[in-house]
């Protein structure tokens, strides 16, 4: 038994971890045990990848490529392959993952099970939209292959299904063509939510990737930075140097607090405002800014943190976001990583998938016990009234009441 946590570090319960490394033996391993859940890189915030006291099937050893058709961009691989390794393999050959979340340090299986979305949702939807086929192994020994036209009910249940339909062993993804690893980007500061929505609506037609960082503690005014990008052919230029920093230990208290947040937000906003404008960015810097800070989740201290993410319909969106920001500013809690984004008008493949048309706000909150949960209840009330949903996959304990 070993202690396993998810990314939010809210718990560290003992699990019986079985490492899967041979795709031909997976059904043998699963059939000999009770129920369990698959665990890849453990980047889920709440408890969706955990099974305290029970079995955990670690999939990171299932990391082989199975087939890559460089003509059509169809990639087949084992489910423990990291999105990072796919990008590094395919981008030099003119292909790229059509949808990628804010970190590339997740497995294909995890990306499917959470139906992750990225900054280009309004153009290319979520990860599940690009899965052509997957192979699922269940504890009764059954092996299920499914796709959009083959047992599609199984695909719909597995995409966004949080691993509850079985262990994904392999999948086929349709990649999209790309000229190179560069993006033409623009950073536009905004002073309030009106300006944000004007930027968001105005960017949809011409920009593939859009996202914004919002200052969650400046009193609900809603200032922030709008970032947008398009893949581009920037010719041959040297790739940025490979670097990373690791947070080597867990500080005794959360480093994210009222004071540090105010200071950070002020510094970040003004620094970025100064650098605002157009620039050519490398895909790693644009898509995965936090990946260079290994173990950044430790900065929230020993009690860990929650992620709160909700989506509200566009019509009620502005008022709802305003109300949520006011609640958050009042609480004094919040995170430096606060994301505001509009989703496109698309229906996801998965039955339990999160993205729906509207605007989404995502924040991390240091775990302050009931105080944090009460804040979430207030936020939930705002979201419910606006007709939206929260990302219960992130494991907030209050979510069960909201579904």
């Amino acid at each position, binding site marked *: 038994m*070993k202690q396993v946590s998810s990314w939010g570090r809210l718990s560290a319960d003992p699990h019986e971890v079985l*490492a899967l*490394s*041979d*795709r*031909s033996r997976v059904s043998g391993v699963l059939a000999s045990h009770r129920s369990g859940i698959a665990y890849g890189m453990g980047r889920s915030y709440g408890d969706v990848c955990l099974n305290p006291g029970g079995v955990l099937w670690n999939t990171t*050893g299932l990391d*082989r*490529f*199975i*087939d*890559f058709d460089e003509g059509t961009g169809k990639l087949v691989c084992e489910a423990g392959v990291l999105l990072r390794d796919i990008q590094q*393999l395919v981008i030099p050959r003119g292909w790229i993952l059509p949808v990628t979340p804010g970190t590339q340090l997740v497995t294909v299986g995890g990306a499917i099970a959470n139906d992750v979305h990225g900054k280009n949702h309004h153009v290319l939807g979520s990860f599940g939209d690009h899965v052509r086929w997957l192979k699922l192994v269940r504890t009764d020994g059954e092996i299920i292959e499914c796709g959009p036209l083959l047992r599609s009910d199984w695909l719909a249940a597995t995409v966004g299904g949080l691993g509850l339909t079985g262990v994904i062993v392999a999948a086929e993804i349709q990649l999209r063509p790309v000229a190179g690893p560069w993006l033409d980007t623009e950073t536009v500061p905004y002073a309030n939510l009106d300006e944000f929505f004007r930027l968001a609506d105005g960017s949809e037609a011409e920009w593939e990737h859009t996202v914004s960082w919002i200052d969650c503690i400046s009193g609900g005014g809603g200032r922030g930075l709008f970032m947008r990008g398009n893949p581009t052919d920037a010719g041959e230029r040297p790739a940025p140097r490979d670097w990373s920093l690791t947070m080597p230990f867990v500080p005794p208290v959360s480093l994210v607090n009222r004071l540090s947040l105010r200071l950070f937000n002020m510094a970040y906003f003004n620094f970025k405002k100064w650098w605002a404008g157009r620039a050519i960015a490398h895909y790693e810097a644009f898509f995965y800014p936090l990946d260079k800070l290994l173990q950044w989740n430790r900065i929230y201290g020993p009690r860990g943190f929650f992620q709160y993410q909700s989506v509200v319909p566009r019509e009620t969106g502005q008022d709802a976001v305003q109300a949520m920001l006011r609640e958050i500013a009042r609480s004094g809690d919040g995170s430096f990583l606060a994301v505001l984004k509009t989703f496109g008008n698309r229906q996801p493949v998965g039955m339990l998938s999160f993205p729906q048309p509207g605007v989404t706000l995502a924040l991390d909150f240091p775990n302050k016990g009931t105080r944090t949960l009460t804040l979430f209840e207030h936020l939930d009330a705002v979201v419910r009234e606006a007709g939206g949903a929260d990302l219960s996959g992130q494991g907030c304990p209050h979510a069960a009441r909201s579904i």
Partner: protein
Amino acid sequence: MEKQKRIVIVGATSAIAEHCARLWAKEGHSLYLIGRNEERLQAVAVDLKIRGAEAAHTGLLDVNDFARHEAVIDQAIKTLRGIDLALIAHGTLGNQKACEQDFNAVLQELNTNAISIISLLTHLANRFEAQRHGTIAVISSVAGDRGRQSNYVYGTAKGAVSIFLQGLRQRLHKSGVHVLTVKPGFVDTPMTKDFKKGMLWARPEAIARRITKAVEAGREVVYTPGYWALIMKIIKVIPESLFKRMVL
């Protein structure tokens, strides 16, 4: 590595070997993978070709089938049309307690982790000596630096291999052939799945990076991760009269 190399790997489905193979595949080299399990070898070979290997052939061998060693090695060299690098990476981690009670278990351990390696090296050494270029790399272990009560059967095998490699290195130096002894510390792989992992445990990807760099640099002995060189230096100087009282 700029020039394309022909690389033979014994124990190619093991975690460290597979990660080394991936780094070499990315550089476009040609590989010959030797192991016991056909299906797993195929899965690895297909993956390596996608990652950029010029070629990835497979050959079946149970290393304890000593009679077949020469033929398998020759087949590998023939298929690759030569050989620039051989990596011996197979091994098992037997049960020390079981070995203490049953000599058959000991014999099995010594055959797999020492004798079979020595047999392969005998054939490889002669071929490399004749062609007067190339590198032989073998994964030994820090366990071979000094016997300790928790794993001295495994340690004996690895120690024997390390000493054999010292002699081989000296002999082959005259022919311009490099011999690399790799001594990993604790590595998190399927072989060590039953151990509780702590701070000193390394990932096979990191070990593989060290190995490929060491081969390129023409190193003789490399501890990986590097801090094991210091740890073992200290362990080795402890006087036996004191060491025997320690619980290690």
